[in-house]
């Protein structure tokens, strides 16, 4: 069985989802890579920002 931490699960989710978004939302291979990387950064980055926001609100 596989029991990842929440952050590991976020990174895996962001990786797989970004690959599919990149392939399906763009036509040119270079644009696919750029869009996929952008989606990955937004997924992972927003998770980090929201986590810090919740931490600061809860204090």
């Amino acid at each position, binding site marked *: 069985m596989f*029991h990842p931490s929440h952050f590991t*699960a976020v990174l895996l989710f962001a990786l*797989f989802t970004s690959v*599919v978004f990149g392939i399906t939302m763009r036509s040119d291979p270079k644009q696919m890579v750029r869009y996929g990387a952008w989606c990955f950064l937004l997924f992972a980055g927003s998770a980090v920002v929201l986590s810090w926001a919740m931490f600061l609100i809860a204090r």
Partner: protein
Amino acid sequence: MATTTPKAVAPAGFQYGALIAGWLIPGGGHFLLGKWGRGLLLLASIGGMFFLGLAMQGKVYTSAHDILDLLALVGDLGNGLLFLVSRLAGWGADSVQVTSADYGRAFIVVAGLLNIIAAVDAHSLAIGRKK
């Protein structure tokens, strides 16, 4: 003098082969169209997400008791043959009992939704809507 502009000609015959193949097997529609690289990446991503969800003891939905269950069941059905095989083999948990199982449940549902997007993309390629 009137000029004629070329119009897009819709391909004749059954046009939903790529859509159905893409739903049944992740990346199957792209394989059918000879887009091997894209198909392999889709298979690895969607299949990887589905099997990681199972490895996390994620729930595979079989019935719906409320609207959220129904939405999750629709997402699971998007996995096509992966969903059918997992049901027949009895894979996946019946209920969410540990924290990672909740992540796994989400992975399985989202894998199905991504597979639907990939199948529609294959259909768009097949009919010439996307290059």
